[in-house]
């Protein structure tokens, strides 16, 4: 036991000898989590897509369009000047720019010449969503006029108007009724975020960023175990161990346990950051969280151990650890939700531990599940750990 602690202490001294290690250990993970989560608003904030609107008309019709957009569940309109809107759009700081021109008024609407303009960034999903929301708003505003016109034509079928003035008065009255009906329209769709009904968890998209970054930044240094082996092999210290009463098992156990312990500490700090700064509900089931984090850390450490038996130099190991860490994180859904990947890729990525770790963490923080629910994910991660530890230990050589 004393030897194990001595190895862990030695590894800690080597790893944290440079102050830059702290940058990778906590500064960068926190910065990435904060910045990526900053791109997605919290549970209390407005999650709708920002839509820049230029209201050059300032008429009742343009105000109605704005009011309808305000009701949208998809976009959040922000009225700006033409110059400001165009500038933000040209600098690609806005997905779409919606322009209500000066001639947009009731007479243009009645004459059928009303036209509005939408500038969209190409291949931008937010711009597509904004377009749908705008069409819905326009349909709503148009429908009042359409309804009034329909009322006039229905009335004309039954009893022709005596004069144009009477017709106009009937149209105005119908328009007023139509607008009132629109205003009084009850909600016809209700959205419920899927979660366990007995343990309500507020859905917060920032949970994705927190879980994803946690996995990314912990897997990379654990893959870096390979660099530690390569370093000791290059320095000749592994050979020297042969002359000491330290067995291969003790050395490997000490090295791996130490790195897993640091990983668990790092993950705990990131979880605390998520809870304290992002108000995420990481602490609902601490035991389940501990199980999935430990399983994930062991799986990553096992992969690092196996990598260490194939890689010859420290610089090779460092580069490959970062590369594998980043690629596995990306494909495991840690940066972007897996729903965005094609079906085949979504199936294939189940060979990666990052996919299972992410699924387990999302089960806890997004779906409000407990220990029993994450056991399959934890089981698969432990399976990865067993397989790769066996390969790594079997192939391990001092020289």
């Amino acid at each position, binding site marked *: 036991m004393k030897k194990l602690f001595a190895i862990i202490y030695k590894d800690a001294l080597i790893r944290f000898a440079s102050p830059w*290690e702290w940058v990778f250990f906590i500064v960068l993970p926190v910065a990435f989590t904060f910045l990526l989560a900053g791109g997605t608003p919290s549970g209390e904030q407005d999650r709708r897509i920002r839509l820049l609107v230029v209201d050059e008309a300032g008429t009742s019709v343009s105000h109605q369009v704005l009011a309808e957009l305000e009701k949208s569940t998809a976009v959040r309109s922000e009225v700006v000047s033409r110059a400001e809107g165009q500038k933000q759009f040209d600098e*690609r700081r806005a997905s779409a720019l919606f322009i209500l021109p000066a001639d947009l008024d009731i007479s243009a609407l009645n004459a059928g010449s009303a036209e509005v303009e939408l500038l969209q960034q190409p291949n931008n999903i937010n711009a597509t969503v904004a377009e*749908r929301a705008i069409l819905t708003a326009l349909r709503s505003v148009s429908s009042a006029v359409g309804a009034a016109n*329909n009322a006039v034509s229905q009335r004309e079928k039954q009893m022709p108007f005596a004069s144009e003035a009477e017709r106009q008065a009937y149209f105005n009255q119908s328009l007023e*009724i139509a607008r009132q009906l629109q205003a009084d329209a009850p909600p016809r769709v209700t959205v419920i*975020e899927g979660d366990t009904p007995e343990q309500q968890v507020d859905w917060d998209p920032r949970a994705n960023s927190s879980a994803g970054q946690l996995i990314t930044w912990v897997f990379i240094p654990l893959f870096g175990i390979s660099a530690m082996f390569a370093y000791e092999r290059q320095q000749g210290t592994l050979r020297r161990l042969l002359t000491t009463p330290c067995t291969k098992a003790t050395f490997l156990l000490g090295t791996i346990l130490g790195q897993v312990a640091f990983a668990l500490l790092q993950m705990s700090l990131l979880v605390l950051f998520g809870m304290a700064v992002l108000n995420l509900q990481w602490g609902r089931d601490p035991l389940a969280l501990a199980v999935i984090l430990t399983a994930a850390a062991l799986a990553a450490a096992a992969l690092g151990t196996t990598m260490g038996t194939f890689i010859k130099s420290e610089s*090779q190991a460092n580069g490959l650890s970062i590369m594998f860490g980043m690629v596995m994180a990306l494909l495991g859904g840690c940066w972007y939700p897996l729903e965005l990947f094609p079906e085949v890729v979504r199936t294939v990525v189940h060979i990666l531990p990052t996919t299972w770790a992410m699924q387990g963490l999302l089960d806890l923080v997004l779906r409000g599940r407990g220990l029993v629910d994450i056991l399959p994910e934890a089981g698969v991660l432990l399976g990865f750990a067993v397989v790769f530890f066996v390969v790594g230990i079997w192939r391990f050589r001092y020289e």
Partner: protein
Amino acid sequence: MLKLILIGLKDLKIMFRDRAALTFMLLAPFLLTLGLGFVTGSFGGGGSGLSDIPVVLVNLDKAELGNALVDVFYSEELSTLVEPSGAASAEATYRLVEEDQAAAAVIIPAGFTQSIIPTAGTFSPDPVQIEIYSNPARPTSAGVIKAIVDEFISRVEEGRISGMTAILSIPGIQNMPSEQVEALARGMFENAEADSDSTTAIALKKASQGADAVQFDPLAYMAPGMALMFLMYTVSYGGRSILAEKAQGTLPRLLVSPTLSYQILGGKVFGIFLSGVAQVGILILASSVFFGVRWGDSFGLVLLILAAVFGATGWGLLLTAIGRSAGQVSALGSSVMLIFGILGGSFISLEQLPPFVRMVSKITPNAWGLDGFTTLALGGGLPQLAEPITALLVMGASLFAVSAILFRRTNVMKR
């Protein structure tokens, strides 16, 4: 000058012999671009990665509008976007969503049609709401399903309001028997539905930035994003070699040879620059060959690559001037690579970052470089590239000047 070029070429050769460095410089950004291509659906021919969104429908209404909504999901228009399936009860759909087998469930309750279309003796004025049970792990897909339902409801409301307006506008409607009003309303609702078409009274004129000239490929953003991020590794790796040569004793040996210190430093900087140009050039070429990205103006592309590498080389040199050992420069370089990667938009679009981050991003060659590459991909030419290229050149020149002062203070190039 010849010596300077020879030193530069020697460093380029050394770098391209280092398999570990090559893996990181070329393979990593290539693999990440490949992964991002899957996310953006760039290999499927679609505009985004979303397709075949699994949605479960429960039609308890079994009447006109409920059936119409089900038909919308099974329509030809949505056949590639959604993959609908039916379920008998709401409880069954909840389970499917919770087990991540569906992005959302749409439950159309019994009486939905009756709450909107008056039917003789059965009109129920109480609103009956369609329930969307969405999967929080698939927010984008669930959002698409919600948008489809919203649009359907919007059309239904249009018909309802049209019919109701026609009815309520009739003078003396309040005194008519309720059966007569209901019959009239139903007739008018149907008329309104038949009369309406999909166009609105306000026409929407659409325009996409640069889309007239060229179809924008998301990989035209992803590929240079990754190349520029890993370029920071390359320039710090090159800078690191100055300190490594000093530690190994080859730099002092060079200094006692009939070579001036500025020639050696110039040669090293030239080597870093050449390595960066080779790296970005190969990755951009690979994006064209393997991913079919079209870069348009070739001259603008070459100038942009040179300017981006010049700006990044300035940073590489500054890191070398600040660092005390090769290891320190290496760690510093990796940190800066990742920090600039996120600040410069290599991971997520700058549009999604807070305003202060967007402002800070201007110090990175990644942000300016990506701006230029996106301009090119959108059909822009040299005139549109003037701003990013100038910014990158100014950045590089300023950082070279600062680094030169720091080098003089730290005496790195002294025997």
